[in-house]
C-alpha cells in the first residue's frame, strides 16, 4: 500500500508539471505502450471525439488487424484519448467522419506539398509512417521545423 501511495504521489507531481503544456496530451505510458507497439502512438489530438469513440469500439477489427485490449486497459485508454481529442471536427476530405488520420482534410492540407513519388520512397513507404519525417513522432512531437524528409 505504501508503494502504491509513493507511485501515486509521483504521478500527481508529473501531472501537475505537464498540465500547462498547451494542447499536447500528458504522457500516458499505457497509451504509449498499447497504441505504440504496431505504429507510432498517434496523438489523440489528431482525431475528434466521435472518431475516437468509433475507433475504440472496433479494436478487434483495427485497419485489418485485431488490436483488442482487456476491458481495464481499453477504458483507461479511451478516457485518455477522449480527454485529449481534437475539439474541432476532423472530417475526411469528403466531409464525412473518418477514422484514418491521413484521410482527414486537416492532414491532407498539412501535407499538400508532398508529391506522390516522395510518399512512395522505400524510406517512407506509407503515410502511416510519421516517424520517417517527423523524427520525434514517437514522443508526440510533430513540429514543422523539425521535419526531415528522407531520401
Amino acid at each position: 500500500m505504501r508503494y502504491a501511495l509513493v507511485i501515486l504521489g509521483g504521478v500527481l507531481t508529473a501531472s501537475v508539471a505537464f498540465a500547462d503544456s498547451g494542447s499536447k496530451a500528458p504522457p500516458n505510458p499505457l497509451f504509449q505502450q498499447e497504441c505504440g507497439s504496431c505504429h507510432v502512438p498517434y496523438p489523440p489530438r489528431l482525431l475528434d471525439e466521435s472518431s475516437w469513440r468509433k475507433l475504440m469500439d472496433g479494436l478487434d477489427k483495427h485497419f485489418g488487424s485485431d488490436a483488442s485490449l482487456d476491458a481495464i486497459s481499453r477504458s483507461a485508454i479511451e478516457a485518455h484519448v477522449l480527454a485529449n481529442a481534437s475539439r474541432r471536427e476532423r472530417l475526411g476530405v469528403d466531409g464525412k467522419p473518418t477514422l484514418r488520420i491521413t484521410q482527414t482534410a486537416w492532414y491532407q492540407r498539412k501535407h499538400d506539398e508532398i508529391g506522390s513519388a516522395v510518399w512512395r520512397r522505400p524510406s517512407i513507404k506509407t503515410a502511416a509512417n510519421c516517424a520517417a519525417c517527423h523524427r520525434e513522432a514517437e514522443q508526440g512531437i510533430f513540429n514543422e521545423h523539425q521535419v526531415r524528409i528522407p531520401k
Partner: protein
Amino acid sequence: MSKPRLSLRHCLALVLLCAAALAQAETPQQILSVYESAARVQAPAFSASAVRGGDFFRNKHGREWSCASCHTGNPVDAGKHASTGKAIQPMAVAANAERFTQPNKVEKWFTRNCKDVLGRECSAAEKADVVAFLSTVK
C-alpha cells in the same frame, strides 16, 4: 495563469501499469508448461514440439499472413509490421531475453495475432509448439 488540472484517469492508468509490471515474471519454460498442461486435457500424450512450432510459425493458414510475415522466417532477427512497417524486436528468446516472461502479454498477443493469421484463436497445443520453437531457435 491556468490552474493545473489533475487527471484521475491518468493516475489510474499509471498505477495499473506499475501493478502489471510488478506482477510475477515467469520463464519461457514455465509459460510453455502451462500451455502443455492445458493441451494434455484434450490429448494426454501431447508433448510440445519445436519442429512443429517452426512449421506453424512459417506457414500460412489460409489467410494473407503467416507469423513470419511480421516476425520474419528467422525469429532471431528483428521483424517489421506487415502494414505499418514498424520495427518489431526479435521473437526468439536467444535474441531477446524479455520474450515469454509475462504471461498476460503472451496471451494478449497470441489472441490478437492468431485471429489475424488463422481467423480464430490458437489451441493450447499450437501455442505450446510455438513457444517451444521460439525458446529454442538459435
